[in-house]
């Protein structure tokens, strides 16, 4: 560590933000995780087996990173996009030609979305072949399937937003399937589109699902998913995980 770095880390301002003193001791390393809001989703210590790349291929983590890229790039695009059939398509041209880094951000948003569908699917395959949906992780597999459906829903609702021929006909074809829903029939498609055909109502509906409703559901489910991964001992193959540790209160009262 450089001298300047040490001085910065020793300053009152730095220590008001990062509460744990930075020391290369076991205690310092534990505190670095424990005393940080963003890192406290991690346990302080992990089984050595959970470090191996081969055990998870890091596919779940990569999905979360892609989701992060999508949240940031999507936020930027929202500033320049109005979900109405008179504006949407021209806003897309504006983003591509007149907005700073607009084309790049839109490209990143699109490719990250395609990659996320692929990586989430591969993550599911990896978990299946590891048998990692078995006790005590059954319910986390269910949450994972819901996350896969949420990913597909986000991707599909986003597909309509550019309001070009590709978007319009892909969604027309996709939502035609909904009209075969049992009992509901044509009304299922109508509920999805807000009208008999893909139009302004559908564009607004898909936009609201895409930028608010589905991300809210996905963030919540992702929180549950990651929390349970940790409680079940990460990808260590240890069926007991944290739950096997004797509760602290009991050992304290025994002393």
């Amino acid at each position: 560590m450089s001298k300047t770095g040490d001085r910065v880390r020793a300053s009152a301002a730095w220590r008001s933000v990062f509460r744990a003193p930075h020391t290369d001791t076991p205690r310092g390393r534990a505190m670095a995780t424990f005393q940080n809001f963003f890192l406290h989703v991690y346990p302080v210590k992990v089984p050595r087996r959970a470090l191996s790349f081969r055990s998870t291929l890091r596919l779940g983590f990569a999905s979360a990173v892609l989701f992060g890229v999508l949240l940031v790039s999507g936020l930027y695009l929202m500033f320049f996009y109005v979900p109405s059939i008179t504006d949407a398509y021209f806003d897309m041209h504006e983003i591509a030609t007149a907005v700073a880094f607009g084309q790049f951000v839109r490209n990143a948003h699109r490719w990250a979305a395609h990659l996320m569908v692929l990586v989430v699917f591969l993550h599911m395959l990896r978990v299946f072949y590891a048998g990692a949906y078995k006790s005590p992780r059954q319910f986390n597999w269910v949450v994972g399937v819901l996350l896969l459906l949420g990913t597909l829903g986000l991707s599909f609702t986003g597909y309509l937003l550019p309001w070009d021929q590709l978007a319009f006909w892909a969604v027309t074809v996709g939502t035609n399937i909904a009209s075969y829903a049992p009992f509901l029939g044509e009304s299922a498609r109508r509920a999805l589109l807000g009208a008999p055909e893909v139009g302004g109502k559908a564009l607004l509906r898909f936009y609201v699902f895409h930028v608010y409703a589905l991300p809210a559901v996905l963030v919540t489910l992702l929180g549950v998913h990651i929390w349970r991964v940790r409680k079940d001992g990460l990808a260590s193959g240890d069926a007991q995980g944290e739950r096997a540790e004797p509760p602290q209160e009991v050992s304290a009262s025994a002393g």
Partner: protein
Amino acid sequence: MPAEAEPRYRLLGVVPREGEVAAEREPEDTVFTWPHLLVRHAVVAAGVIVVVFALAIAFDAPLKEMANPNLTPPVAKAPWYFAGLQELLSHFHPMIAGVFLPTAAVLGLLLLPYLDLNPATEARARRVAVVTFTLLVVVAVLLTVVGAFFRGPGWSWAWPWQHLYLEL
């Protein structure tokens, strides 16, 4: 009070069996999250972002002509991840391909941990589950590849090396 009375015992509590086992368990081989796991995650995150940025620089997202409900394009494809479903719809009644099979697939996935009660995790000890799942995945992937790469105008067969009707 006699000094050497017979020892008396009193039940103070019952310790569940797991508590005892946990106390006897060997301490696990663990390492600190910082830096061991966090450094690995940082590398993966950087790698993912580099891939996305490289794709974003190399390829532009498509933008066709403005949506026109009165002009059906020669090829109307669903997004690639639904191309398998669209391929299925071209072979079976929509009630089966569009409603029954997708519902069965989703329900099957949701209920998998409650249907497969075999505790084994090695592939050799769970042949039925592995073979069934693999077959279904292969069928789904094949349908998706055919729908995405091998279908052209009016859902006719088209070799992807002659003309690729795929938009991402």
